[in-house]
């Protein structure tokens, strides 16, 4: 069990629930739109807390395989961007395209799962 309870996802769930069920129905126009965007942003944070750690490990492993040497995820990603820009990699390289697609799909699972046509991930019960 984490040291602090209720944990961060529980706080976010409560905040989202208040905004969506209680505040949003009372609003119109500009503030209704802003409130809806705020709910979306908090839901992104909620999904990021659940998904980002596993995604970062997987992305790092893919980058190491693609670039052929170890390193930290962000540094490897910058290196890949620089090598693409420099023309070191073919634009139709299947391993490159697979990696980019996988990274975008994983980010969309946090930022906007609907874009993938996938249902939002159901998370395991927290104990």
């Amino acid at each position: 069990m984490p040291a602090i309870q209720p944990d961060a996802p529980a706080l976010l769930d409560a905040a989202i629930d208040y905004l969506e069920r209680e505040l949003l129905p009372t609003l119109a126009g500009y503030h209704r739109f802003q409130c809806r965007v705020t709910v979306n942003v908090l839901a992104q944070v909620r999904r990021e807390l659940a998904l980002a750690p596993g995604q970062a490990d997987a992305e790092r492993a893919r980058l190491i395989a693609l670039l052929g040497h170890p390193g930290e995820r962000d540094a490897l990603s910058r290196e890949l961007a620089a090598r693409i820009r420099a023309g070191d990699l073919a634009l139709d390289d299947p391993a490159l395209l697979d990696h980019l697609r996988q990274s975008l799909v994983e980010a969309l699972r946090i930022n906007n799962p609907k874009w993938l046509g996938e249902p939002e991930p159901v998370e395991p019960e927290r104990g």
Partner: protein
Amino acid sequence: MTEHEVFQHTLEAAIRHYLGAPGEVRALARLTGGATKLTWSFDAVVGAETLPLILQQTPADRLAAASELGGSRIHGAQDAALLAAAAAAGVPAPRVRFALQPDDHLGEGVVTDRAAGETLGRKINTDPRLAAVRPQLAAQCGAILAAVHRIDPTGLPFLATQTAADQLAIFRGIADACDHPLPAVELGLRWVAEHLPPAPRTAVVHGDFRNGNLIVGDGGVRCVLDWELAHLGDPMLDLGWICVKTWRFGGAPPVGGFGHRADLFRAYEQAGGGPVDPTHVRFWEAFGCVKWALMCMHKGLGALDTIPGATPGARRSVEAVAIGRRIEEPLLDFLDLITGKAA
């Protein structure tokens, strides 16, 4: 007085000055949308008439930020001249009542008539009341774009020329200013650089012609809004941009989520726009995905002190940071386009 009351009084003074007494402003409401530009809806009492009007305004303190993204932007008196030229070419454009002057203390902008109809892309694609006109929209957009590309640029010296290569340089600059190098963005910019097509001709290009910038009502497209990215360039840009998946608002068909490319292209050709090469339009759709990704990145990071032109310590709106999290949507669409997986 509240900020809102001060604004209303300032606007009433402008209405009296340009349109006449009593100039009372009623039902003043800020509409959603617009990154740097604010859009207000209101009714103005002039003589015995009540006029439904729209003010599109860039407040003075936002003008610097507005000029930095996407090159030069069209404002105020320029916008008014452009809308008049568009109307003369047969484009359904907003009727201009007046352009703001510095003495008005409202920043830059124009006051236009408020056309009745729907602007929200998702509603245009789903509202049962628009079911009858929806199948006609793609062809109407084709005919309207042929008229846009016929606009006489003679009286519009402020329109900058932007070739595809110029646009690439602008967005390369935005990517470098953001200093947040993403492999997928770099792949996109390199793909664009290696696929730059020769333009069939140079024309007045709207630059942001898409679902969300159209007023749709009885009979279909009633008005084309938001001309601030207009320039002289490759007319195929406009045909590609309206197909970018972001502007389909959940609708399945590729043109704005409401229609088909064949209808758009055929109507464009029949209205005298010239022959359409679908591969050339696809280039602009793919480039459009990369451009939108960089606009999202820039907007999301926009008030960070590291971005040139940003105001140090400025707060970022929830809308701005949320757009920053939309980078991956068009980048995945881009990959689908260049690997042949896209619809």
